[in-house]
């Protein structure tokens, strides 16, 4: 079930303009547009934090090696206001997650969206097109 994939995201996805607006730091400083990333893995922890929440995901590569990735999303308040609840992302939840890797080469990334086992696709806390995302 845990397939490790490092797939370039089709540039068209950027056309969705799903971009974080609830920032408290420069995203382009921390993350690298040249390093798109898409992984399938299991949630080990969801940290409901502000101004950004974090999803910790464990993935297993083809050689069976376990890697732990930290994914930054929009803030917990934005997720809460959109109806996300803690039970959505309990440890063990399988998901596909995509975004951009950190410039410093660490196993850290900025999440654009997640795909849950039931087929729901959730954007990572904020969408550029939703101007008042944090207040909804």
């Amino acid at each position, binding site marked *: 079930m845990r397939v490790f994939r490092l797939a370039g995201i089709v540039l068209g996805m950027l056309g969705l303009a799903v971009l974080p607006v609830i920032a408290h*730091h420069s995203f382009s400083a921390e993350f690298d547009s040249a390093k798109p990333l898409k992984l399938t893995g299991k949630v080990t922890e969801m940290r409901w934090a502000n101004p950004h929440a974090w999803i910790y995901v464990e993935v297993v590569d083809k050689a069976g090696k376990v890697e732990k990735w930290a994914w930054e999303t929009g803030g917990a308040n934005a997720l809460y206001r959109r109806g996300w609840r803690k039970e959505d992302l309990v440890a063990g939840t399988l998901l596909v997650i995509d975004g951009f890797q950190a410039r410093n080469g660490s196993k850290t990334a900025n999440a654009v969206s997640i795909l849950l086992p039931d087929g729901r696709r959730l954007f990572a806390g904020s969408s550029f097109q939703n101007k008042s995302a*944090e207040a909804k």
Partner: protein
Amino acid sequence: MPSYLRAVTAVCSLTLLAFTASCSRRPTPTAALLPRTADGKPDLQGIWQVRSRASYDLEDHVARAGMPAGKGVVTDGPIPYQPWAAAKKLENAANRHSADPLARCYLPGVPRIMYLEFPFQIFQTPDHIAITFEWTQVHRTIYTNGAPAPVGIDFWMGDSRGRWEGDTLVVDVSSHNDRTWFDMAGNFHSEALKVVERYTLLDTNTIQYEATIEDPKVFTRPWTIRMPLERRTDTDRIFEYQCQAEAEEANGAFERDPMTWYPGPSHPPQIPAEWTGSAAQTPARTPPAPTGAIKRMADGTPNLQGYFMADGGGANYGLGKHEVDFLTPAGRGIVVDPPDGLLPAQSWAKTEMVNRKLPERGYDDPTAHCFVAGVPRSMYVPSPMQILQPPGYLVILHERMSWRTIPLDGRPHLPDHLRLWQGDSVGRWEGDTLVIETANLNGKAWLNEVGEVLSHAARVVERLTPTDADTIHYEATVSDPLVYTRPWTIALPINRQKDELLEVACLEDDQDLPHLKDIRDAARAKKGP
């Protein structure tokens, strides 16, 4: 005899025949003599500070390093810990220099925030009681409007719902996390904590503060602390103590920007010749005509109260019009003067703004360190705010844990050498427009995430004009002779939201800054010494 006892005696003598029974008990508030709000509740407004050693240790304690001896405030002590918790408390005490959440400048929680030896100000409206604290710009809202508490979410500062029982304000504080302590001595709780606070005005200058603490995971029974809060009659405003900012400036983690920081009164600003600004260049703008009925207070002034969020249109990533740049959203541009929509930066500032966009400068944005956003940035960061209009003030509470308390009594600005992150704001009504003038900025804030520049020499004039029941037209004119060639003005709508504020515990949960620091350090190493 304390004045309130004299008052009690006087009232009892006068009304002895009618109220014999009530006068025979311990001194109770002299109801007739208490200051009251327009709706008849005891008026708790003003600046208060604890008068006890509770912040060091809630129980009787001998002196330790950095901790004076003191009497405890537990009315039914000792604190009834379960055995495991008693051991944990001792461990906390032994490790307090590093383990105390306050040693890391974290949010203190309730009740601890109430008895830190820092002043706070209470503002009272019929629906909300707001408390703004000197300690790191923390604020609390006590909802007295009957709105239900949110479920499925917890807060460092808990969730506070209040009601009046006679002349006592009773507040249920729930939805705590398990990461705050009660004092420096390591007294602690779990997330099962429930606190019931009681605020009783004993006389004009004294509130009796009581908090009953219940936590079945940690204690064997509920227990209560009680202490007086004393009115600070020596000051008419709260200043600031930005705990983390001061710590990082002291240890070098946050570095001085010599071009913008206030250098002290002995270094008057040398205004570059590029500044040609004058008031004539920014004539007073005509406020927009209302497009619908606006709400009004009892005295006829516009009622701006409620939960709001600015539609800054990407202003936090550039005040001028700009396109998407990777993860930085586009902006529609909110600069309305100069007419070209561009910030009229001096040449050095243009270069600085290009430099601040480099990845290695991302670390230098104060909000990346979770410091407050400053003025005017705190108004257009994409984060909600609550506006209250208690008598004599406009109060703005920002979800990103900072506040602005703006007196409307015509007082002058602070002396020029007193500089603050949020500056010193004073306000006045001009027709239906609230005009706020801000000076005394410390020059440490950035205008946004991409590093548009603001210096300590800046003065900001904001204009808030309601255009209908749910919209405020916001303008800010910035005059900064060290950075720009002339004053400039931004304009944007601030829209009513239905949701209450939540809490952004930025510093407590932040995991971004180390990454930004790595990028900066790597860039510096590459460049060499």
